[in-house]
């Protein structure tokens, strides 16, 4: 039998899951993460460590950087990638997303359309990365985990995330379309 015609292949692998299924699963797994590791789920803070490791591999040193000056941060950097739970989790997210795309035959190398697209993506990435570090978290660590932990800061983050998204959308339509 052709797997592409299989009902469950279509339901579970091929078609996108409803938002509500995703929401329930994310909630469940973030509870498990908090309960087992003692830390709320986060994504972008880990990327700062990846940046530091890359920088050190290239011969740089972050010894004097205030961001990495705490005892915990130093120890994490010294122990390396394979001993850092958060890094392995981020790696898992990337592998999982790739697997989901491949299994649904949805993988494609996309063409870069214009220079504008490169500029927009670079600017957007820099602003998001900078904002996530200066705000002590991204939409996962500060928003999702914040609200899930009944922290007021998560709701404040949500309010300004919406304001930022509105301004960003207007700029996108005005300059990049």
């Amino acid at each position, binding site marked *: 039998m052709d797997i592409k015609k299989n009902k469950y292949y279509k339901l579970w692998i091929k078609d996108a899951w409803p938002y509500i299924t995703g929401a329930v699963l994310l909630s469940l797994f973030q509870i498990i993460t908090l309960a087992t590791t003692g830390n709320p789920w986060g994504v972008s803070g880990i990327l700062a460590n990846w940046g530091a490791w890359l920088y050190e591999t290239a011969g740089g040193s972050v010894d004097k950087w205030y961001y990495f000056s705490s005892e915990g941060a130093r120890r994490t950097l010294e122990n390396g990638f394979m001993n850092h739970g958060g890094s392995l989790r981020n790696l898992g997210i990337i592998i999982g997303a790739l697997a989901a*795309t491949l299994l649904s035959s949805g993988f494609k190398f996309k063409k870069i*359309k214009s220079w504008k697209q490169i500029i927009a993506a670079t600017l957007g990435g820099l602003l998001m990365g900078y904002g996530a570090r200066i705000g002590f978290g991204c939409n996962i660590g500060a928003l999702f985990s914040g609200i899930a932990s009944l922290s007021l800061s998560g709701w404040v983050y949500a309010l300004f995330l919406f304001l930022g998204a509105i301004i960003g959308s207007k700029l996108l339509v005005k300059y990049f379309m």
Partner: protein
Amino acid sequence: MKEVELDCLGEACPIPLVKAENKIKELEIGDVLIVQIDHSCAMKNLPEWARKEGHNVEIEEIDDGEWEIIIEKVK
């Protein structure tokens, strides 16, 4: 009755949706708008928007990671 193609290949959300919204305004009732996309999120939000507007929508898988959203303007 005409058929209009809208090339949104290589565009990420929300650009395909905004482009489709603008394009369908230029069309007459009965015209068909074919939006070409390769961003899986657009496969969710484009049909959702078009159906909410009351248009007829069909999704066609063209290739791996490439789809056409066929929207018939009905009002």
